[in-house]
């Protein structure tokens, strides 16, 4: 236990050294070389970030408000993708008929990157929220279906037999055996799905939007405002990281039964 703590302390120490080294190199590069023409210093980025917490980027929205706009889009698209993805994944994994019909279609859709849907989404749904929801949906949906399907395929048939022997009917066996043994797979899919949704919202916003964190980056590009671009990128990274942490935490709570030891 002691050794473990020490190891953790060490790896944290080296991670911090890595980050610090980049920040120092960045600052030195900006101050003393021609890179300074292309980049703001980390401190400038940080100051701008603090400034945009209370001052608008663009017409009226502050940085947190732009983030909230993007997050809202992700939550809607991701939730729809989760519901539809889990239903289709389980149906494909448990019913031969559904598998036979949907799997080839799905395998065709699967390799299409979510940005490839942007032009189609704009033609179909215009430049409003529906188009963005559609793009985000497609990004998350594919990952969630793939993983849920894999989970539904590996359900232990013996365990279904156990449930029947104990008096469960088919519906009960489905909810008490099939679903719980898919949950870890569903979560794996949702984890990947959420991060691809977060990437997709940015792509969608960069193409057509008047608000959202993706838009702040394109707006920065149009105004030649490097600091604003960096503020956007860093905000994206931090929120992406927080989303991943949130998903991992949810998994730990919901999949407690898989954890050995205390």
């Amino acid at each position, binding site marked *: 236990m002691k050794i473990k703590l020490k190891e953790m302390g060490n790896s944290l120490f080296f991670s911090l050294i890595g980050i610090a080294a980049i920040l120092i190199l960045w600052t030195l590069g900006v101050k003393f070389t021609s890179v300074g023409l292309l980049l703001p210093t980390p401190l400038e980025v940080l100051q701008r970030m603090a400034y945009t917490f209370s001052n608008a980027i663009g017409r009226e929205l502050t940085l947190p408000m732009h983030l909230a706009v993007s997050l809202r889009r992700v939550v809607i698209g991701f939730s729809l993708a989760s519901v539809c993805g889990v239903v289709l994944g389980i149906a494909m994994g448990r019913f031969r008929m559904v598998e036979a019909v949907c799997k080839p279609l799905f395998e065709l859709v699967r390799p299409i990157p979510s940005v490839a849907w942007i032009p189609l989404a704009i033609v179909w749904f215009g430049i409003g929220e529906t188009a963005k929801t559609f793009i985000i949906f497609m990004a998350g949906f594919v990952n969630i279906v793939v993983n849920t399907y894999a989970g539904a395929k590996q359900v232990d048939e*013996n*365990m279904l*037999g*156990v*449930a*029947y*022997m*104990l*008096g*469960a*009917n088919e519906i*009960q066996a489905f909810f*008490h*055996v099939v679903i*719980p*043994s898919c*949950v870890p797979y569903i979560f794996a899919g949702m984890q990947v799905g959420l991060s691809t949704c977060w990437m997709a919202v940015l792509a969608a916003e960069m193409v057509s939007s008047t608000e959202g964190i993706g838009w702040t980056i394109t707006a920065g590009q149009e105004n030649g405002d490097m600091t604003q671009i960096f503020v956007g990128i860093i905000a994206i990274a931090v929120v992406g990281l927080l989303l991943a942490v949130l998903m991992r935490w949810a998994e730990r709570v919901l999949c*407690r*039964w*898989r*954890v*050995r*030891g205390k």
Partner: protein
Amino acid sequence: MSETRKTVIECKHVSKTFYSMAGDNLVVSDLNFNVYENEFVVLFGPGQCGKSTILNLISGLESPTGGEIVVSGEKVSGPSPKRGMVYQTTNLFMWYTVMQNVEFGPKMQGVPKKIRRERAQKYIDLVGLNGFENQFPVKLSGGMQQRVGIARAYANEPELICMDEPFGHLDAQTRYLMEEEVERISNTARRTVVFVTNNAEEAIYLADRIILLHNCPTSVHKEYTVDLPRPRDYTSPEFLALREQITADMDNTL
């Protein structure tokens, strides 16, 4: 004596063939035996002789290709909560706690929460897992997991409990301990038990009656009534004599 006892299982000319492209495989042939109420019967035979198949037939997970099996006057036609099963590997619901595993059967049959909790608790206490109700199986040792499996089968209060080499995967020490436990449990909560094993010691320690099976295709070779006083002593001369006899008879079946 058996004339006055209620018959729980009647196997009548049971046979089972597995059909496949590679050829038909006759696993059980003309199997006949009865099991009476509250009797502890051990099906004993060499490995790979279709003992588990017999349990699957009794439990209804598979159906015989010839003859019939009648349990409590009803022909077996599919799985039923009236027949409990303890498996070779524990087969617990890993996503449910000990309590949720044990109360699973009653819950599926709509027994109200308060009653099924009490009943589950009774059997959790009986198998000695008091205090582990809210643990997940992954945190329990192999022996403890098998206890949960036993409690889960008993909590459904079936007419008949089948145990399929439940201690086959345990180490020798735990195995002795679990044999004592099963002896104690089946004395406290009397049930008809059909127990499958390929371990002669285990068979003699637990059984009221041992049915020695032939190897492929499986049928009854010989029966022994074990009337040594309980709990039995593995090292008593009578125990060892019976063990010698059964082992010799088993060699003849090969």
